[in-house]
């Protein structure tokens, strides 16, 4: 098993309703709730206490762990409390509640970093607070901390293959030059000879914008990706852009590649240029019941209900609110949760869109097998999961599944395949621990 020559996937409706819309900055809300765990790795410890005055860009949470990203205040105001509460990841976590004063004064620490060496650059990448903004939220400082010269491809992910989401598209059109500057900085300090920017073919204007800016630069290429989901998945985009395979247990590094999302590169470049860390997030607000679907720039920690309110509110009671795209995003049970660094979309649907269809028996049609970009056999894995057969699950390489949901999307029996595989993966991990 493994990667086939031409990776499969599914054709999903693009539904890019907000394409071409500018990114509108949202006014600062009354209160923000900044969670201390917005990245993969160790959660941060709060550095402020109730009553403290904070300014935009001030460090309010940090960790000593190797994999971790510092957290900065997205607003100016007073710390109201440090609370324990549910975050959008479904876990109880520490959050800092800041009452804003609306002045949005910048902290004194917001000055462009001085970079003279590789170590300085890594420190800057860490201090920027940037995490993988494509959704994985892996800290940028840890991702770039490799031996310079060991990687020969930097793959920039501008695929945005999920339906509805258009922020990366808007970012690529608005900040083309900044993104290219960010790419050049990474290439310079990590001594990466080549960069490939992967953009899905449904965004010809973004491809043109990059080609215009890059005119004559041979080390950075733009690669047009096929319009098929999931082209933006890490392993898929590496294969599509460089032809290299990243099998299970391998990191992109082992294949000589580093993948970064366009928004992550942009936020890093903003920090290098201005010293302002990641304090706001570009987000698409869409869905069939949002009054004014649009792209907004939201301070990190804003309540999701405030963001929806800014977009005109909802036409009717939502049946489902999804953070992220409809394929891989997570549904949330309530809207009083804070926006995190890695959020890229808030989608609200009514019952007509988000209703659940009845599950029927598997007819062994094999559509899931044809759809899986990783070349797995979802129907077989599903059966092994129901039998709780860990050995079979391992044999069918369930750990190779990246949870893209293509199998569940095409399944005529409407089986919740990828939800099952998430359980199955946990089961295999649990068994291998014993």
């Amino acid at each position: 098993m493994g990667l086939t020559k031409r990776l499969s996937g599914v054709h999903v409706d693009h539904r890019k309703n907000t394409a071409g819309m500018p990114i509108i900055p949202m006014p600062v809300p009354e209160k923000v709730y900044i969670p201390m765990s917005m990245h993969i790795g160790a959660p941060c410890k709060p550095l402020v206490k109730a009553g403290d005055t904070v300014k935009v860009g001030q460090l309010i949470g940090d960790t000593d762990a190797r994999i971790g990203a510092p957290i900065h205040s997205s607003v100016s105001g007073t710390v109201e409390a440090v609370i324990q509460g549910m975050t959008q990841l479904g876990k109880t976590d520490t959050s800092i509640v800041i009452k804003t004063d609306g002045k949005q004064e910048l902290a004194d620490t917001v000055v462009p970093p001085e970079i003279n060496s590789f170590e300085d650059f890594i420190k800057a990448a860490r201090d920027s607070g940037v995490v993988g903004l494509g959704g994985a939220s892996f800290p940028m400082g840890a991702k770039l901390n490799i031996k310079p010269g060991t990687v020969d491809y930097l793959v920039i992910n501008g695929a945005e293959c999920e339906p509805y989401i258009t922020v990366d598209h808007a970012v690529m059109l608005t900040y083309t030059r900044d993104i290219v500057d960010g790419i050049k900085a990474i290439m310079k300090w990590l001594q990466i000879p080549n960069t490939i920017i992967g953009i899905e073919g449904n965004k010809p204007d973004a491809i043109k914008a990059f080609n215009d800016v890059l005119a004559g630069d041979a080390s950075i290429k733009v690669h047009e990706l096929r319009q098929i989901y999931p082209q933006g998945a890490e392993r898929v985009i590496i294969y599509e852009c460089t032809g290299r395979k990243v099998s299970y247990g391998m990191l992109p590094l082992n294949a000589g590649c580093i993948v970064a999302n366009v928004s992550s590169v942009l936020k890093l470049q903003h920090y290098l240029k201005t010293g302002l860390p990641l304090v706001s997030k570009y987000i698409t607000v869409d869905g069939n019941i949002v009054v004014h679907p649009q792209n907004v720039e939201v301070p990190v920690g804003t309540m999701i209900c405030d963001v929806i309110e800014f977009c005109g509110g909802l036409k009717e009671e939502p049946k489902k609110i999804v953070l992220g795209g409809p394929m891989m995003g997570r549904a949330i049970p309530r809207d009083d949760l804070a926006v995190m660094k890695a959020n890229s979309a808030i989608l609200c649907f009514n019952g007509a869109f988000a209703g659940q269809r009845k599950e029927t028996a598997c007819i062994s049609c094999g559509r899931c097998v044809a759809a899986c970009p990783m070349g797995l056999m979802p129907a077989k894995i599903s059966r092994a999961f129901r039998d709780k057969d860990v050995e079979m699950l391992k044999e069918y390489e369930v750990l190779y599944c990246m949870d893209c949901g293509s199998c569940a999307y095409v399944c005529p029996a409407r089986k919740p395949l990828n939800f099952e595989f998430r359980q199955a993966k946990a089961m295999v991990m649990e068994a291998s621990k014993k």
Partner: protein
Amino acid sequence: MQAFIYPVIIAIAIAFIASLLLALAAKFMSVPVNETQVKIREQLPGANCGACGFAGCDDYAAALAEEGSTVKTNLCVPGADAAAAAIAAILGQDALDVVEQVANVRCSGLCDATKPEMDYQGIKTCAAAKTMFGGPGACKYGCIGFGDCQKVCPYGAIEVCNGVAKVNREVCVGCGLCAATCPQHIIDIIPDVKRVFVACSSADKGAVTNKLCSAGCIGCKLCEKACKFDAIHVEDNHAKIDPDKCKNCGLCAKACPKKVIHVYPKPVVKPMVKVG
């Protein structure tokens, strides 16, 4: 001579030769079976629950029947005293008493007491539901109610009624399979003689619990004051009973304003249940 005689003779001859072969095979290829083991195995209930600490009933029987075995004869909780006495008789030892145990669900959040927080659409198992914001219920510590315990119980002793798993104490043998399966870890296995239980495990603060569930422990400590044996204490915002100190007096249950301390009637002598 009739024509059918030949096939009949041939068939009889083949049968004779085959039976001879089988008899020889049984003689020379037989695996020696420990008769004690077989006898002991017959006395065990056959649930293969693992409460004894062995891989199943066969494994336990084999361990008991071994020459010079020091394995105790009273480890089979489902088999209770009857099985222990029978095994002891086979092995010629003194009968040991089995501490009968029973499962107890530490939640009383029935459908009319608490409300679901979300319209959960995923796979209908507790383990899967728990991965989604800790479960569909408003209280994140209580019974999820998809019946993972019910599916795993070999005796049919636990059942989800009105949103919360309920143990049939007359059928439950305390094997512990449900307790090991429950993703919320709210099933306790306790000695059958203990009849007073706190049916709540919420670690939320009292005010929060009160808002989420009308049948939740709010940690008011009235039970602590009522108890004369220092057996009940509020930890993690809910009351916990120390079974070693509890004397089944039920004073705490009378003092509880939320009625989350349940007192069960006296245990009955359980018949041994055989499975399969």
